[in-house]
């Protein structure tokens, strides 16, 4: 049975990817699963300097999901290269690294630092964060800034380039034409959904920043629709994610045409769930008497 898939020139041993922000810097998960068994892991988004993130509370459970307001806390690219790269060098699986910045310059600086590390297979640009030079709207909401951001990161990296988008996209056609023109090689869809929660006891917003990102099974149908619509307007490979917890969830994304899938919040609940998803994919293919997973990708259009 063949589970190997490709995102353009990027070959993966299977389509199951650990999504950014839910597998830490990699090491944290080793007592729960063999990282070499997943298609790729995506290191949580790194910034040029350490970033402390948002004040608590940072998480609230919702029906069938969760909201988070971590605020991109991370140790910064330099400490990552020093403390975590040696461990990642012992792995044989693909290593993707998320990057973010408050300005385009910061994104570029992180990409430049990562360029030196040969072990890193791909950069995933998280464009769902606030652009401080544009009053805090996300990079996704301003197409000209998005174009400059992607072009400038592209100009400093030879690595496989993925952009991770969220539901803030206003016009898929425009965004996709930017990505295609600027030689983005794959698109991750979707980041969490901006959402809101009220603390009725305190009669106040639950989160200090009001809005927080909704993820988990509750968003899966929304994410599926995004993946479907995106694939109507681009031939770029898509990594589908949003609420995947089981093989059946993963299959929905693959059948719609995603070439790989990201496991996100559910890894927080069941840190070895990637292996269960993988096993479930194999069982499905066996039951359907299909010997190559590629033959089901995009079957539902």
């Amino acid at each position, binding site marked *: 049975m063949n589970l190997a898939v490709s995102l353009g020139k990027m070959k993966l041993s299977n389509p199951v990817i650990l999504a950014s922000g839910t597998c830490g810097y990699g090491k*944290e998960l080793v007592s729960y699963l063999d990282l070499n068994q997943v298609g790729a892991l995506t290191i949580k988004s790194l910034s040029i300097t350490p970033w402390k*993130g948002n004040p608590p509370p940072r998480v609230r*459970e919702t029906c069938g999901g*969760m909201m988070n307001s971590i605020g991109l*806390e991370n140790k910064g690219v330099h400490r990552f290269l020093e403390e975590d790269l040696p461990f990642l060098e012992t792995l044989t699986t693909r290593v993707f690294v998320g990057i973010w910045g408050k300005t385009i310059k910061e994104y570029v600086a992180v990409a430049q630092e990562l360029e030196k590390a040969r072990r890193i297979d791909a950069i995933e640009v998280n464009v769902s964060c606030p652009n401080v030079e544009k009053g805090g709207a996300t990079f996704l909401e301003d197409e000209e800034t998005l174009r400059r951001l992607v072009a400038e990161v592209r100009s400093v990296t030879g690595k496989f380039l993925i952009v991770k988008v969220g539901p803030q996209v206003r016009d898929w056609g425009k965004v996709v034409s930017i990505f295609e023109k600027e030689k983005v090689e794959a698109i991750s869809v979707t980041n969490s959904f901006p959402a809101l929660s009220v603390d009725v006891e305190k009669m106040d917003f639950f989160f200090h920043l009001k809005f927080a990102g909704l993820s988990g099974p509750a968003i899966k149908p929304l994410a599926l629709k995004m993946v479907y619509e995106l694939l109507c307007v681009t031939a770029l490979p898509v990594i589908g994610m949003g609420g995947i917890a089981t093989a059946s969830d993963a299959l929905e994304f693959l059948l719609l045409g995603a070439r790989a899938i990201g496991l996100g919040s559910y890894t*927080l609940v069941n*840190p070895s769930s990637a292996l269960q998803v993988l096993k479930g994919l194999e069982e499905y293919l066996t039951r359907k008497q299909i010997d190559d997973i590629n033959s089901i990708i995009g079957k539902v259009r």
Partner: protein
Amino acid sequence: MKAMVQNKRFLSEKLCTLTLTGDEGITSASPGQFVMVKVNEAFDPFLRRPLGIMEVDGNTFTLLFEIVGRGTKMLAQKNVGEELDVLGPLGKGFSLFPSFGILVAGGRGIVPLYFLASTLARTGIPFVFLLGIRSREELPLLDFLEKFSPVFWSCEEEVPGGFCGDVVALLQQYLSSVSLPVGTRVYACGPEGMVRALCRVEMLRGIPVEVSLESLMGCGFGVCLSCGVEKKDGKGYYHVCKDGPVFLLSEVGL
């Protein structure tokens, strides 16, 4: 691991204990550590619940929790013979070798300190146990402390035999009546208000205070970074699941 419910007991309407049999992984648990419990096999409630470990005997362990929301309510509905999915033991526990321990628990904060007291008693380290409860409802918590001595307790309503007030006032009364040996450590766990009040106790100056903190959590193993607690110097956050749940009171900003 899968853990099977061996015994369930309601101490009051809101307080429940579950004794579970897991695998050998739990035998290494030390006082202050916790487990992440999935209350059902569905995707709702989505997250696990972080619960302190109260007692470990071989691969059997006891949890005591308060019903505070729908997750803990579902947990309290589990029956003997049912299985739960449990991750752990997790986190960093208490230091175990003081010359003398002062254990200060508020309500369900008794959980890790009961485990600590049992361990200190076994190793022959002397300690005093102070327990504060809010109301008569929580009196059954006192039964756990029968085997320890000395024990002092307080209740915020007047109950015969108890100090009337909160546990921090009881602690202050205790501290003013004794002279402490070198190497004394204070161990505390309780509601946020109690922990904050401890920071203001003058008589604790110079005595290390270890506090076990409670927090909303996503994963419990250091990945999601949901359980941030500010560092004393304001330069970022510790994560309760991995850097704690036990911290020196002097290193966290509350």
